[in-house]
């Protein structure tokens, strides 16, 4: 019979590891304690020992491949007394704790034991009676099958030795007309749905958003500012910038105004370190810009904004936008932000309640500039109004502070020359 040995939890609180080296080949005999492979996690490189005596009938994963705790690592054909034992003993053996092996093992369930041979069975008649045969598949394919609700044993593998590959799962799923929905989904089977595995970016966004909402005490304020002078200046310099292949939007001005206001309101450029009961006030002004891409939201960071000219900021924004469009934003591009601006107005919408890029203290949302009546010199005249939405972590920033901060930004934007004077 076969015993499926799964990658055990080696106790660092991590859930995956990378196969660094295989020590065994298919067909090789192993004893309890023999090293099967070398596995690397974040801090540990360790041999993974065999929990059983037997012959390796399959091994999963290539060198360099990352697998999750609980994914099959090898299948061992067990011989001798264990194999000769009756079904009851087989079940006992499957459910035992992984004594003598790394940590507490996740042992495969009953169907991890396979008959050594299918002889004597009419496959169709006995299909429901016998344990399901464990399909040969890559760990990625297994995860994908689980995600899409595909019965992997019904998929024809196209990989080596008919191993089921990721593409096979996708093809099977596509051909099945989406007949399966995840068992834990609350979607009715009668409604047509499309199911896609979560991308890493979407998972990351989900994790960060929930972390922010769970840890920060969100509070928002809104305001509007008439930006006639800013429009005049932008119009004046737009052509000049374009001659140097730099597109001038309003964002560089907002960036600069925000960085200069942050210098005056240090709480907005800080984070709370509860572990050590302290506030961390940052003396550098790195502002992240939330960028909408087809794959999801990314937040590249413009560094030392307070020290840069409008031209330099415009150039960097252009560069980041180019990188975002071409999926070239790196982890380094998104690190070290101290505050975030989200400029959703370029798409539409006036106000929003932005979610703080935790552990930062605040985020500023820029809405769409609209023409609306404003009062100037006691006259109602048409004005160009920029809506601002600001969320802060109320644990760090009080209402008065954030309002004064927003007033300061509006003051800079209504008189853009002050951005180079102050």
């Amino acid at each position, binding site marked *: 019979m076969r015993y499926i040995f799964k990658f055990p939890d080696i106790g660092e609180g991590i859930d995956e590891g990378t196969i660094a080296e295989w020590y065994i080949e298919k067909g090789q005999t192993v004893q309890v304690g023999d090293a099967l492979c070398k596995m690397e996690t974040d*801090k540990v*490189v360790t041999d993974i020992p065999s929990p059983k005596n037997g012959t390796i009938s399959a091994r999963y994963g290539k060198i360099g491949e990352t697998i999750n705790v609980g994914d099959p690592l090898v299948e061992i054909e067990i011989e001798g007394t264990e194999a000769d034992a009756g079904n009851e003993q087989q079940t006992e053996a499957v459910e035992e704790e992984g004594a003598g092996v790394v*940590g507490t093992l996740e042992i495969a369930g009953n169907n991890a034991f396979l008959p050594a041979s299918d002889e004597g069975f009419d496959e169709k008649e006995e299909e429901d009676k016998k344990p399901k045969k464990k399909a040969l598949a890559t760990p990625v394919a297994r995860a994908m099958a689980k995600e899409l609700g595909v019965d992997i044993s019904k998929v024809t593998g196209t990989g080596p030795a008919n191993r089921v590959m990721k593409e096979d799962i996708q093809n099977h799923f596509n051909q099945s007309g989406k007949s399966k929905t995840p068992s834990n989904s609350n979607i009715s089977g009668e409604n047509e749905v499309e199911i896609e595995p979560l991308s890493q970016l979407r998972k990351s966004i989900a994790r960060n958003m929930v972390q922010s909402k769970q840890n920060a005490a969100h509070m928002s304020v809104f305001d509007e500012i008439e930006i006639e002078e800013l429009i005049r200046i932008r119009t004046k310099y737009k052509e000049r910038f374009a001659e140097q292949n730099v597109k001038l939007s309003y964002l560089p001005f907002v960036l600069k105004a925000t960085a200069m206001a942050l210098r005056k309101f240090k709480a907005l450029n800080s984070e709370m370190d509860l572990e050590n009961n302290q506030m961390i006030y940052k003396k550098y002004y790195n502002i992240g810009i939330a960028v909408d891409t087809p794959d999801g939201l990314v937040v590249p960071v413009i560094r030392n904004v307070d020290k840069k000219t409008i031209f330099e900021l415009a150039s960097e924004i252009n560069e980041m936008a180019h990188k975002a469009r071409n999926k070239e934003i790196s982890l380094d591009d998104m690190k070290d932000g101290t505050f975030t601006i989200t400029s959703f107005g370029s798409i539409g919408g006036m106000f929003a309640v932005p979610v703080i890029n935790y552990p930062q203290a605040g985020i500023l949302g820029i809405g769409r500039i609209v023409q609306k009546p404003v009062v100037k010199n006691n006259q109602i005249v048409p004005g160009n109004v920029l809506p601002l939405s600001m969320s802060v972590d109320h644990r760090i920033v009080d209402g008065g502070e954030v309002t004064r901060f927003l007033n300061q930004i509006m003051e800079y934007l209504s008189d853009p020359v002050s951005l180079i004077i102050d």
Partner: protein
Amino acid sequence: MTTVHKYNLPDFDIFNNDQANKNYSFWIPDKKYLILGQSNKPEDSLFEEKVNEDNLTVYKRPSGGEAVILTKNTLVISIVFTAENFENPGKYFSIANGFIMNALRKLGISNIGQKGISDITIGNKKILGSSIYRRKDKIFYHAVLNVSESISQIAYYLKHPKKEPDYRKGRNHQEFVTSIRAEGFTFEIHEIISAIENEIISNNHN
């Protein structure tokens, strides 16, 4: 193109030598070395141009984790454990780091803690990184303690790591790493060695 050497530095002797008198060792590097983690690539982890310009030797250690720099102002601490039944290796971080943290506390360094998977910190800044390599029943713990090395040295040769512990929160080397000296403690390396050794011996790990 950076040449990466197989790890054979003095701290590894106690692991390779079954006849070693002690199952721990302290090594003060004689010069600068750059050490990659098992799966690190020089181009991802190092500013190769600077490393090669300064003619530094690069090694790849058998254990995991990210690249580190060893200098005369750092202390490499190694401990070998023999684990029956292939126990969970993660717990050996707690044991070994426990020796070191107790020793540092006894020297009067306050605010010592363990963060991430296996870092030792003063406040929110890292002073020691560690990793583990296990072969059969032997577990090799090794760690680098920054006694007095300038953080600019780290930032000069090492890129921002691809993986980082949660508590790093994107901080660059200058903001994330510190040394015992930079935190205001002026112990000589030998005083620190003596304190850690006492801690190891008093816990019968020798």
